């Protein structure tokens, strides 16, 4: 038995500890039933599902365009990534190529979301290890990033920013200067947090070597995202299966080598800096032009046309009440979200509602090896390992 085992003469059962569902040191609603031998974990049973809301059932009864606001609620710390993944899956079904300006705006939105997500993850995991100051810095930085998203689409968290075949709104005037000032300040704060945390002996003692998963385990358990890259496997869909305008951009994909929590932390830290680079390049190069495709099957006509012309008015009525024209078939589209590969598997029966809308959520797959990673470890390893898994309840439980 692990760790020397229980003393058979004592005949004592292992202590059963309920970790969660609402534990102050976890950011996410999950229950971990731990069987303990002293400080050592004999068995960890991870139970998710406390935030199950029937997303997939709800999607089956809504038109394609009506489900976009629901995808915000999947990963509420990086909603634009989910919006984009869903809309691009529907676009794959329709065979649409979006205009270039739209692609740039989506990339900017995605990278802003990725930054916000990593900041929240790093900040709250630091706070769970009792480092409160970097948490405040990182949340301030996150607020500055959310200011961009607010200016882009009018909401900070429930963005509803992307549409099938376009985006909700164009970038506001002067976004580039706005972004230069605010993102510089945000990155300064991230560097401050980096200075406090990365060399700190308490932080490193709790992060280094804990939560180890071998690269074979990572692949076999279907782990993606920063957790996989911290294990030395450079699988980033932005690089390996490029979408949007990523092939034209210049950025680094950080990988770790030790596959422990500290490498996951370092990979996330580096990805924030790379996202900053990507946004700067996008704002440099963004072309002018339309942000919506001119496709009557899915994109609604302009208000200026609806007001004056009969055909467009009829078009608007048909699109709103019937959802649009979608060919029967099934598609799977995935992109690299902050936690890994988020994929949408859509089955269409030729009507305006998806027959099935399945989310391949990265958090769910990243959580499944958690019990395996904790087995035989110390009780104190639960908190940093869970923090660096970055389980987002809305996405994991759908």
């Amino acid at each position, binding site marked *: 038995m692990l760790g020397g085992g229980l003393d058979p003469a004592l005949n004592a*059962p*292992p202590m*059963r500890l309920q970790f969660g569902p609402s534990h102050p040191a976890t950011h996410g609603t999950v229950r971990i*039933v731990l*069987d303990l031998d002293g400080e050592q974990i004999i*068995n960890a*049973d991870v*139970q*998710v*599902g406390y935030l*199950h809301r*029937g997303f*997939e*059932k*709800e999607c*089956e*009864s*809504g*038109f394609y365009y*009506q489900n976009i606001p629901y995808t915000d609620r999947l990963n509420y710390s990086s909603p634009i990534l989910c919006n984009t993944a869903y809309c691009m899956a529907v676009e*794959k*079904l329709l*065979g649409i190529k979006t205009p270039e300006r739209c692609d740039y705006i989506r990339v900017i939105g995605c990278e802003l979301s990725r930054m916000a997500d990593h900041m929240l993850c790093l900040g709250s995991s630091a706070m769970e290890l009792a480092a409160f100051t970097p948490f405040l810095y990182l949340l301030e930085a996150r607020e500055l990033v959310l200011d961009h998203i607010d200016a882009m689409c009018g909401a900070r968290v429930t963005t509803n920013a992307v549409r099938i075949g376009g985006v909700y709104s164009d970038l506001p005037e002067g976004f580039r200067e706005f972004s230069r000032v605010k993102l510089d300040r945000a990155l300064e704060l991230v560097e401050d947090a980096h200075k406090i945390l990365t060399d700190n002996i308490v932080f490193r003692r709790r992060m280094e070597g804990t939560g180890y998963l071998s690269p074979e385990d990572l*692949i*076999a*358990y*279907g782990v993606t995202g920063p957790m996989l890259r911290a294990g030395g*496997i450079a*699988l980033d869909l932005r690089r*390996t*299966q490029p979408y949007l305008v990523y092939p034209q951009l210049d950025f680094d994909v950080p990988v770790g080598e030790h596959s422990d929590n500290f490498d996951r932390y370092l990979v996330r830290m580096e990805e924030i800096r790379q996202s900053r680079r990507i946004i700067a390049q996008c704002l440099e190069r963004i072309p002018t032009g339309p942000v919506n495709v001119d496709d009557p099957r899915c994109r609604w006509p302009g208000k200026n046309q609806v007001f004056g012309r009969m055909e467009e008015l009829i078009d608007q009525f048909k699109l709103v009440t*019937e*959802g649009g024209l979608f*060919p*029967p*078939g*099934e*598609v*799977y589209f*995935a992109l690299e979200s902050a936690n890994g590969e988020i*994929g949408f*598997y859509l*089955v*269409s*029966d*030729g*009507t*305006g*509602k998806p*027959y*099935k809308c*399945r989310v*391949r959520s990265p958090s*769910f*797959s990243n*959580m*499944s*090896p958690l019990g*395996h990673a904790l087995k035989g470890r110390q009780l104190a390893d639960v908190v940093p390992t869970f923090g660096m898994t970055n389980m987002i309840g809305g996405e994991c*439980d759908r």
Partner: protein
Amino acid sequence: MPENNPQPPTVSAAEPPAPSPLMAAVLARLGTLVVEHHADYGDDRIHVARENIAEVCRALRDTPELAFDMCLDVTAVDYFGNPDGFRAPERIWDENRGEWRIRPVSRHYVIPPPRGPEPRFAVVYHLLSTRHLHRLRIKTRVPEDDPTIATVSDIWPAANWLERETWDLYGIRFTGHPDLRRIYLNDEFVGHPLRKDYAKEHEQPLEEYMGPGAKEPRRPLS
């Protein structure tokens, strides 16, 4: 009964295009185990018989030039007996109102299409090879009266939770699964909510709260 429904354009073209290099390799390896293969919308997909699923998955993982070492997703689709290509009926029999209606009707009704003769469920696997970076989708039809299929959780541990989820939401039993419990819903839940005949408005009775620990242990100590 309906008059003759207008037929929507069919999905499959008359002449199937040449299979992609990945599909050619898969077909060469699996041979007659593949019942049919498609490449709609650029996604390669194969259909296999239910009995062969474990054998097929093992072969896909262990063949070096295929090397599907990551199982991204296991899920199911409730086709209600329709074929995969969905000859989508333009009109739908609305049982609540007793009339033929154009789909979709309104947001808060799910009107299942009329049942067909084919096996009802399809279990869908999405695979990725981290070495060769290619993807494959496997589909298997599973009948309604015997919704069982062999587990692949011994091939990819990732399938463990995903199969639990599929059991929870669709009621498909995975034989040989080490720990087939519900994962999202509570143990007292009756039915499987993602089936098309589970109405969206359906409510479950409130279970009486038995006090802390009354339902423990959910899982015997191992």
